[in-house]
């Protein structure tokens, strides 16, 4: 059915095409114009015929009148009859009659009528109007030639003196009837012929015009249309190559230029598309394109990330199927474009894959879609975790000497005091005499001091233990001064020989943090501060630890040293991993980067300001715990 419709329309389409329409219009014009002029021409010619015949009959009858009157006067009736018979050679003359005063036919173009009374010979002549005209002609003695009302004939009435006037007024009548129909038909024929000739000429012109349109325009237009269709069908190397310098030729060349440009653009687009495809396919990051939570495209990296073999397996899956249960729409576009989020993907094998995802929207296949680019950070996370532990160990290593030293002193005097007490008590026992009061007091003093030393050692060990408690990641209210004191005592051995440690504690509430992490942070900062100060002038340098409340939400802890300071160009890179100014073996370069990670993970922030030669100040802002605590509690109670 569908194929039929264009086929049927093709005929009409051919009709409205220029090469047919213009000649058709011309032919129609020729027809209408021909008919119009024909009508006018025919009417005009018929009038001419009437006038011409009327004049001719008038002339002939006037001539006959004289001749016949003469012949009649001389009694030559036979000659009169011959004269009338002569008229018969005109085929259009219907009849010629000569009537005497008794209205009997004296002579006629028809032999049979001679001698008959008029009412038998030619009954038309006794009709009232004919009689009236006859009478008028007789009375006035003048001829009367008229065209009949229907224009079909010319009739002439001429009075004739039948005998010499001396013999009395005998007046006869000459009657001629001339038929116009044949003459008019001939004129009509000629008019039609000339109209036909001019129409045929126009038809010829129309035909030539049609041929002109066919060859000059039609063929080229069809060529152009066919090439346009080829282009539309994707044959980009099709060209019209129309000749001619007319508008159509110009159009054809412009068309070819356009096609050329289109072809080049298409090629460029194809190449660019291929490049982008390669880019996407080779990209180490997983790229997902999805719309309305259904996956449309995934690159090989994405396929690998999720443990599939082919991209086709992924296509059409719901986004939820790619994620670990409980993920809250992590692939939806965020209000902050470009901001990375951590998303837990579900590997085909069921295990979790941690990805850092950036999501934004693009048009895909002409419709809006969402692109998520995910980077597998599972390993990185593990490495980071390991590094953090390592760093702590490194810090511990750094501290070991100091701690050993710290412990060494109490151990030595605990041991010496205990040895003194044992010796005193042994001597007294051997001597068998009790200790003197003085001796007893000395021993007591020595034991008390040993006890103090033990206490001190226990404190040191406690601090170390709390510092290295790694499994507990829980955030909770932490007394920041207690953490600072622990750190200060651990870092004392590093600082002691370089500077004086000054504590300026303000009134601060507890902060929301992980005690162990916080300890790691401040220990790092204090050790760094100590290491920034050269040895030798402990009295002239200081490491100042200050706490203060910024506002209802924040508490700030400043660690200020009077060390060498950091050049401004290094300040920018200070928190980047593996950045260090220390000699190889002294630091890992991870310290401050981990500090930064710890602070941000706990919801705080860290700032640094420094002046070369004067010292450096680190400021750590931590959120106040009370409000968060309440919020956490509220959340728990509702949970």
């Amino acid at each position, binding site marked *: 059915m569908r194929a039929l419709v264009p086929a049927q329309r093709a005929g009409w389409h051919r009709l409205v095409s220029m090469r047919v329409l213009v000649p058709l219009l011309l032919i129609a014009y020729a027809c209408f114009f021909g008919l119009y002029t024909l009508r006018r021409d025919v009417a005009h010619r018929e009038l001419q015929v009437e006038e011409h015949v009327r004049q001719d009959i008038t002339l002939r009858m006037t001539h006959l009148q004289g001749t016949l009157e003469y012949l009649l006067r001389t009694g030559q009736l036979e000659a009169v009859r011959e004269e009338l018979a002569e008229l018969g050679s005109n*085929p259009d003359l219907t009849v010629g009659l000569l009537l005497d005063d008794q209205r009997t036919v004296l002579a006629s173009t028809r*032999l049979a009528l001679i001698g008959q009374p008029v009412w038998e010979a030619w009954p038309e002549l006794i009709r009232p109007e004919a009689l009236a005209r006859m009478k008028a002609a007789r009375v006035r003695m003048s001829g009367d030639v008229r065209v009949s009302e229907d224009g079909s004939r010319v009739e002439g009435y001429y009075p004739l003196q039948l005998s010499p006037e001396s013999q009395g007024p005998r007046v006869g009548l000459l009657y001629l009837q001339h038929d116009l129909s044949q003459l008019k038909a001939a004129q009509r024929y000629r008019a039609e012929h000339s109209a036909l000739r001019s129409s045929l000429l126009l038809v010829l012109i129309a035909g030539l015009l049609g041929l002109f349109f066919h060859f000059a325009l039609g063929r080229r237009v069809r060529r152009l249309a066919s090439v346009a269709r080829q282009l539309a069908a994707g044959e980009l190397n099709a060209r019209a190559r129309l000749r001619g310098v007319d508008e159509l030729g110009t159009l054809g060349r412009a068309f070819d230029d356009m096609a050329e440009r289109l072809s080049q653009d298409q090629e460029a687009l194809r190449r660019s598309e291929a490049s982008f495809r390669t880019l996407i396919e080779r990209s180490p990051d997983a790229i997902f394109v999805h719309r309305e939570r259904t996956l449309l495209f995934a690159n090989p990296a994405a396929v690998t990330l999720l443990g599939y073999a082919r991209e086709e397996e992924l296509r059409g899956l719901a986004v939820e199927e790619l994620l670990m249960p409980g993920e809250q729409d992590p692939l939806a576009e965020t209000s902050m474009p470009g901001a990375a989020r951590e998303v837990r993907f579900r590997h085909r094998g069921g295990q979790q894959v941690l990805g850092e995802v950036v999501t934004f929207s693009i048009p895909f296949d002409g419709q809006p879609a969402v692109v998520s680019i995910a980077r597998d950070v599972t390993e990185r996370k593990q490495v980071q975790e390991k590094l953090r532990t390592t760093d702590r160990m490194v810090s511990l290593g750094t501290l070991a000497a100091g701690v050993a030293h710290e412990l060494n002193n109490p151990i030595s005097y605990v041991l010496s005091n205990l040895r003194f007490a044992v010796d005193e008590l042994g001597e007294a026992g051997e001597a068998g005499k009790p200790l003197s009061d003085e001796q007893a007091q000395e021993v007591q003093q020595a034991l008390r001091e040993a006890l103090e030393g033990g206490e001190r050692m226990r404190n040191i060990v406690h601090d170390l233990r709390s510092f290295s408690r790694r499994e507990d990641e829980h955030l909770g209210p932490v007394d920041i001064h207690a953490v600072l004191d622990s750190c200060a005592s651990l870092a004392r051995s590093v600082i002691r020989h370089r500077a004086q440690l000054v504590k300026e504690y303000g009134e601060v509430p507890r902060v929301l943090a992980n005690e162990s992490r916080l300890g790691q942070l401040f220990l790092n900062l204090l050790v760094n501060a100590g290491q920034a100060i050269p040895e030798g002038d402990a009295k002239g340098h200081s490491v100042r630890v200050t706490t203060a409340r910024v506002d209802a939400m924040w508490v700030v802890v400043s660690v200020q040293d009077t060390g060498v300071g950091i050049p401004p160009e290094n300040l920018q890179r200070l928190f980047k991993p593996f950045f260090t100014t220390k000699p190889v073996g002294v630091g890992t370069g991870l310290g401050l980067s981990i500090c930064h990670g710890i602070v941000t993970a706990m919801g705080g922030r860290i700032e640094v300001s420094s002046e070369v030669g004067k010292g450096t100040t680190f400021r750590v802002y931590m959120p106040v715990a009370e409000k968060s605590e309440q919020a956490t509690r509220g959340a728990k109670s509702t949970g």
Partner: protein
Amino acid sequence: MNAPRSQSWLLAALLLLCACTPTPEPRLRMGTIPWPGSEPLFLGQQLGLIPAQRVHLIEYRSSAQLLRAFRNGAIDAVSASLEEVLSLEQFGHEPRVVLVLDASHGADCLMVRPGMASLSGLAGQRIGSEESLLGMYMLTRVLERAGLRREDVRLEFSPLETHVEAWQRGELDAVVTFEPYCQRLASVGAHKLFDSSSIPGEIVDVLVVRKDFLQAWPHQVDALLRGWFAALAWKQQHPEEAIQRMAGRLGLEPRRLHEALSGVRFMDAPAQRTLLTGARPGLQDTIERMGELLRHHQLLPGNPGQTESARMLDAAPLLRVSP
């Protein structure tokens, strides 16, 4: 599909346009004189067998007037006797004989006063005749039979119509004439002493058409021939009615007309073919004999013995109409 159909519609419209008025064709103007042999023409026209829109009949009063009109080109065809045809040919009018209308077998006559018993009685008498070749020929034949010369009689040339009156006035003793005047003279007391039945095959009336008209409008001539044969057939089938219809025109009573017609032999199609076609058409012999005779009597210019051209005969219309 549609485009050619609409184009053919246009073509049809154009054809319709040219079909509006038929090509105007000139009518064959044929001159006649009052003569019974021409009556079937008028009968045919009256009956519609000879269409008036193709053939226009003109009724001249005398053969002189008729031939004058033909010579002047006022008419295209005439009913003429062979002598007249020879004369027309002689003067370069290119007559073409397409049909033998009739052969006079008694319709041409010599009417004399009742007292005259033999042709020899004509010597010194006043003989009336039309001033025509036919009249001269007839007179010549009569004088031949009488053994007289032209100088032996007194010839009075006047139009045919006037003969009766002249006879009645006693101005003529004999008249060489033809029907219907023979009958009219008989009705006023003349009697027939000699007629064409004595010279059979010599007085023949033929249909002569001008050569150029015949070439230009052969169908008009065909129409006349067809009508002629149809009229003869009708006359054959309805003799009484035909006589009644024809009588009025010649001014004769039916009885007289019947007598007049008995002196005229009409030819049917086979007879026509014998006369006009073949390697040696019958009419050709007659024409040559006639020419010789006329030249002998110096009625026709040229030397005796001169052969007449065979081109005067044109049997093509006859063959078309009656193959």
